[in-house]
């Protein structure tokens, strides 16, 4: 090996150490994705071997030297049917398999912990319900289903964690969600995978999957003092929302208590479920869904609240829902240490009618 220069040698060693052909399986979804992947690789290899062996064998067996006179053959309906139906069948199997996985990744179980992520050129802003803010980093406990609610402040971004095999676009003007449950504690790449302008390749960060104890310590250590709902409560007052949404029967706006996840009857007779998206849209485009019995007098807050502010407001309105509060409390008591006050206890705003 003496003729290999030391620099080159170091390079080679470095490379061999770095060499990997698939990323760590760090989430509960990853094994499912990998299984599908290997099945697909299997199909590709089968197909390729089939086709290339046909080509190879025929071109050796029937090369001009060995087989000077070609035999003209029309075709064969039976064969056509075979190679139409068999690939079709195989592809359909993968369609079903893939669809199952897709619905699994995009529909979180109801008890998942919610984390908000706002994408902007060129950073990820993460907001935990407990009020922890992070930039280009995401701390999560292993073993808990986590739902990430994404939105973008400007252009399309895409939130990708290869080690978890999940990815979801952050869209301007609309919430999207993705869900995962980390398995192994560790530090994993977080990428923006949708081209979003000059610093697209700089819009990267790390996901820290931590043991529940570590996570608790981290959460306690990095809280900014107020939870999202508490911030939202302040905003609710300072933006004058409570002038109309006081919860009184005489108030000009509907009471917002308990509306999260409830079925709202709209003025045009249809009904809608008050999801996060609905709440956000009610603040920005109030007249697109007017609840029955109210005049469309609510002003639009388009351009006056940042996406972060909207998240705070949405979390606040959600915290007015007793079920959600209970669930959040359960999350909290499970995760956060006892000294930290659960959000629900402080949340109900003055003047909002208790259910």
């Amino acid at each position, binding site marked *: 090996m003496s003729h290999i220069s030391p620099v080159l040698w170091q390079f080679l060693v470095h490379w061999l150490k770095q060499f990997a052909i698939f990323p760590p399986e760090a989430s509960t979804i990853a094994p499912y994705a990998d299984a599908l992947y290997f099945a697909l690789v299997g199909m590709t290899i089968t197909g390729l071997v089939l086709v290339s062996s046909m080509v190879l064998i025929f071109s050796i067996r029937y090369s001009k030297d060995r087989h000077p006179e070609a035999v003209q053959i029309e075709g064969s309906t039976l064969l056509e049917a075979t190679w139409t139906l068999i690939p079709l069948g195989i592809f359909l199997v993968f369609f079903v398999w893939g669809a199952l996985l897709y619905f699994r990744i995009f529909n979180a179980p109801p008890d998942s912990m919610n984390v908000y992520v706002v994408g902007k050129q060129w950073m990820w802003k993460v907001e935990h319900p407990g009020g922890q803010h992070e930039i280009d980093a995401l701390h999560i406990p292993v073993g808990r289903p986590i739902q990430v609610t994404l939105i973008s402040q400007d252009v399309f971004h895409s939130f990708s964690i290869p080690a978890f095999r999940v990815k979801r676009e952050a869209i301007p003007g609309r919430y999207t969600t993705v869900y995962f449950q980390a398995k192994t504690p560790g530090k994993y790449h977080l990428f923006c995978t949708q081209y979003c302008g000059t610093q697209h390749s700089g819009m990267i960060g790390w996901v820290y999957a931590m043991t529940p104890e570590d996570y608790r310590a981290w959460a306690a250590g990095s809280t900014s003092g107020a939870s999202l709902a508490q911030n939202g409560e302040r905003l609710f007052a300072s933006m004058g929302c409570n002038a109309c949404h006081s919860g009184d029967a005489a108030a000009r706006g509907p009471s917002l208590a308990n509306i999260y996840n409830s*079925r709202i009857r709209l003025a045009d007779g*249809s*009904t*809608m*479920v008050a*999801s996060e*998206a*609905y709440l956000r849209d009610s603040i920005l485009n109030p007249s697109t869904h007017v609840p029955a019995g109210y005049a469309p007098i609510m002003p639009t807050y388009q351009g006056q609240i940042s996406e972060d502010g909207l998240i705070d407001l949405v979390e606040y309105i959600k915290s007015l829902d007793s079920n959600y509060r209970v669930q959040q409390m359960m999350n909290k008591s499970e995760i956060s240490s006892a000294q930290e006050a659960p959000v629900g206890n402080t949340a109900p705003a003055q003047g909002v009618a208790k259910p």
Partner: protein
Amino acid sequence: MSEKIDPEHQEQHIVGPPVYLTILLCLLVLTAITTGVAFIDLGVFNAVIALAIACLKASLVVLFFMHIKYSSRLLKMTVLAGLFTFMLLLTLTMTDYISRAWGMW
């Protein structure tokens, strides 16, 4: 050419002024109707009627002014192919827009 029996080819047919005049009249009447109907509240049927009349007018133009009624099957198919692709664009795009909010009401 003319003795060959080929569905793609067909003798040219001259359409005369009487036909054109009739069509012109129909189109004007339909325009009047569609404008008039717009002033009556019929709920969703306003849009339906407006579109139906527009389609009717368009078919009259295509069939008579543009001679498709007297043209070869190839040209008829061509027109249909255009409509078909346009409908594909609409319906498949709508599969997204219609079902996007499913589960939200």
